[in-house]
């Protein structure tokens, strides 16, 4: 198998505020949150009540469909509050950190003799199982099904994404330990993709027992779904797993130290970030722990533009607000301006030098090195599909995106299947949504399609 993949389609959005390679803060949050909404298809059963003492690794939630799938507390402390929304929907479980840093100690099996089931059991018990995701659909995998292969993307190409070489530079042993465990869970091998530009310099290219792929190209080249589509596309009936490097390291720590340790180095980025850099934290940390990173001086026509706090990147992240919490799977925080302002004749002005467009109807294509302070203005209103060939330019997959989206809108299961619904999740088509001149909510449509497939196929 040739292991080099060149992707000519894609787009790196030149957004300002990339993190410089230094860790400027070690965050020890007072309050952390466990959010059921982070986990697709999780039907949460609450295992704790307010006032319960927990350790890092104590189960907080379980999945009603499969009680062995658990979500655990990231820290030791006390369950402070259970936040519910409409119809008593469980939104967040807030945990008061006691800063004693106590961990539940798990008995891990010896890798040389362990059976597959023993490995999955300890992953489930420790709460690390959800770091693995299953394709199709990007959901928590069913432990009973052995995947065809496991895919790991060794780089993140999304806008202002953390440099994984930097963020995980001290985790080499944990990563190798994690890969050793994963190798026992599949016969198809572990596929690790690295970007061609820093392949040799990457700390990961010396990892063992993995099948390497080098990737060349712009975002979404770092998306694991795009990589799978170009390595060995998923067919109907097949199941593969994906996991990010942070998850691999956490699994490695579980099997070397016996603890649930999901501490990670994340990037704090964006045009409204005063000091774009890295910070060490736990998933579930509160945005108020980094409030000094927000820049409140941006103005438009004399009025201050509010900051949008995004857990994740600008394409796929969640708007959590200044008091929100970092999502379980997110490795970066992005701060951008809200774009709630009017612009006179903006759509016809020839020069809007602060606006970026992939289309040549603006002149931003003449300044490829410039970066922009983009905001959340939609730059126009939603319309029907009119322009063609726009999505295709940013989707390096063998898929007809418009036809797939139309099949989803028509709830035509047969055609969704035929057009490749098994091969995509929302993040893979996020750039299509960014470039869409008709301002169509592409990811929302894909999400609806995946929900429909899960419902129909169960």
């Amino acid at each position, binding site marked *: 198998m040739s292991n080099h993949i060149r992707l000519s389609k894609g787009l790196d959005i030149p957004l300002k505020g990339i993190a410089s390679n230094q860790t400027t803060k070690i965050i020890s949050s007072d309050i952390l949150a466990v959010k059921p909404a982070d986990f697709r298809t999780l039907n949460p059963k609450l295992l704790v009540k307010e006032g319960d003492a927990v350790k890092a690794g104590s189960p907080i939630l379980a999945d009603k469909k499969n009680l062995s799938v658990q979500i655990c507390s990231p820290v030791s402390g006390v369950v402070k509050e259970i936040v519910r929304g409409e119809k008593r929907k469980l939104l967040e479980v807030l945990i008061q950190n006691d800063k004693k840093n106590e961990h539940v100690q798990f008995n891990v099996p010896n890798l040389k003799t362990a059976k597959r089931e023993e490995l999955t059991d300890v992953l489930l018990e420790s709460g690390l199982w959800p770091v693995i995701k299953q394709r199709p659909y990007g959901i928590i995998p069913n432990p009973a099904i052995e995947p065809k292969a496991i895919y790991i993307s060794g780089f993140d190409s999304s806008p202002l994404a953390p440099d994984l070489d930097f963020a995980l530079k001290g985790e080499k042993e944990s990563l190798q330990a994690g890969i050793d465990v994963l190798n026992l869970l599949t016969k198809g091998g572990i596929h690790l993709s690295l970007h061609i530009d820093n392949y040799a310099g990457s700390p990961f290219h010396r990892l063992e027992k993995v099948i390497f792929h080098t990737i060349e190209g712009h975002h979404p080249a770092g998306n694991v779904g795009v990589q799978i589509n170009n390595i060995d596309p998923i067919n109907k009936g097949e199941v593969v797993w994906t996991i990010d490097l942070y998850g691999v390291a956490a699994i490695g720590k579980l099997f070397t130290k016996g603890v649930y340790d999901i501490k990670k180095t994340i990037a704090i980025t964006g045009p409204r970030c005063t000091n774009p850099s890295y910070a060490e934290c736990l998933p579930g940390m509160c945005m108020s722990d980094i409030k000094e990173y927000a820049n409140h001086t941006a103005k438009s026509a004399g009025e201050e533009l509010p900051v949008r706090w995004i857990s994740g990147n*600008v394409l796929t992240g969640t708007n959590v607000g200044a008091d929100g919490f970092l999502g379980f799977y997110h490795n970066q925080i992005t701060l951008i301006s809200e774009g*709630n302002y009017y612009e006179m004749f*903006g*759509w016809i002005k020839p020069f809007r030098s602060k606006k970026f*467009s992939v*289309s040549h109807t603006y002149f931003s294509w003449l300044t490829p090195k410039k970066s922009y302070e983009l905001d959340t*203005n939609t730059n126009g209103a939603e319309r029907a599909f009119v322009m063609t060939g726009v999505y295709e330019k940013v989707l390096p997959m063998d898929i*007809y995106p418009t036809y797939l989206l139309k099949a989803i809108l028509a709830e035509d299961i047969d055609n969704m299947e035929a*057009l490749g619904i098994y091969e995509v999740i929302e993040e893979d088509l996020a750039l299509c*949504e960014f470039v869409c001149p008709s301002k169509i909510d592409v990811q929302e449509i894909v999400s609806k399609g995946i929900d429909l497939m899960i419902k129909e196929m169960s």
Partner: protein
Amino acid sequence: MKALRKIVDNIKPTFSKGGKLGFLHSTFDAFETFLFVPDTVTKSGVHIKDSIDLKRTMSFVIIALMPAMLFGMWNTGYQYNLSTGGSMEFWGMFWFGFLKVLPLIIVSYVVGLGIEFTAAQIRGHEVNEGFLVSGMLIPLIMPVDVPLWILALAVAFAVIIGKEVFGGTGMNIWNPALLARAFVFFAYPSQISGDKIWIAGLSEGQGIVDGFSGATPLANAMAGTPVPSFSDMFFGFIPGCVGETSTLAILLGAIILIATGVASWKIMFSTVAGAMLTGLLLNAVAPADPSSYLNIPAWDHLVMGGFAFGAVFMATDPVTSAQTETGKWIYGFLIGIIVIIIRAFNPGYPEGMMLAILLLNTFAPLIDHYVVQSNIRKRLKRATVTVKK
């Protein structure tokens, strides 16, 4: 700009809900978004969006149409001057043409936008930008002397039957502007064919210079009489529909459309390639009789009649053309072939561009279907191979 903003701010309360003219709320919205990019922000999915929208896309088509429109105005005066043997200056000709063409543009926009606004208000939608382009295209593909009431009927037909019944912009099967022309072509054929109607005032028998015919090059070709020189046809000093005569002006538009990526160069290129190849083929098999239509040189076809205008502005309409990249090559190529076939072999009517594009509009979904099917078959094949293992 600031003054305009003040005016809008002043009248806004009147048109808002509860105001005197509150019932025109959605119409006002259309005008407001015309003046201002709205302040809406992203809610789900991506947090930032590209700065392009349909308004900007459509306005680049309008900009690309400007050279053809301005030349068309001048040429209207120029042809009138030729036919009457007058002695107008450059600006005189332009002014004459401007006064002739402007009413066509106004009628087209007033009728079309009126229907669009009404349809949007009935549906509770925002007003779509599609007609901004159609409204400019329609006057440019009409003879300058077309009666305004016929033009109004044609626009209404195109917008209602061609677009709104399918669900509005983005849902239509046929190019609305060409449907307007087809309507006139079939309902009022005498208004859009013959030798008299292409030049202002000619059909009313205003003073004609001896020996002046007023026939278009296509009509000459049909009748077997000599066509004007290539350069005259290329620059556009010939009778014809308002905007279609000057291939040079249309090429300027094509450059704008291709450079901005608004229209597909693949369709333009393959349409020209299809016509050129077919034309060459017909030249090769043409009988010795020099008056045979088959003897018209292939390159002359590219600068005669509506070919260039159709290839650049009509065939490339993203809604009604093929939507897959492979499909676009096939679609354009077939248009090119069929135009020349209609021109050379159809005994009744010398022009083929309108019918060729409308025909391929009809077949574009079929072309796309087969292109997408090949992707589906590939996926199915992969799945069965895996199962066999």
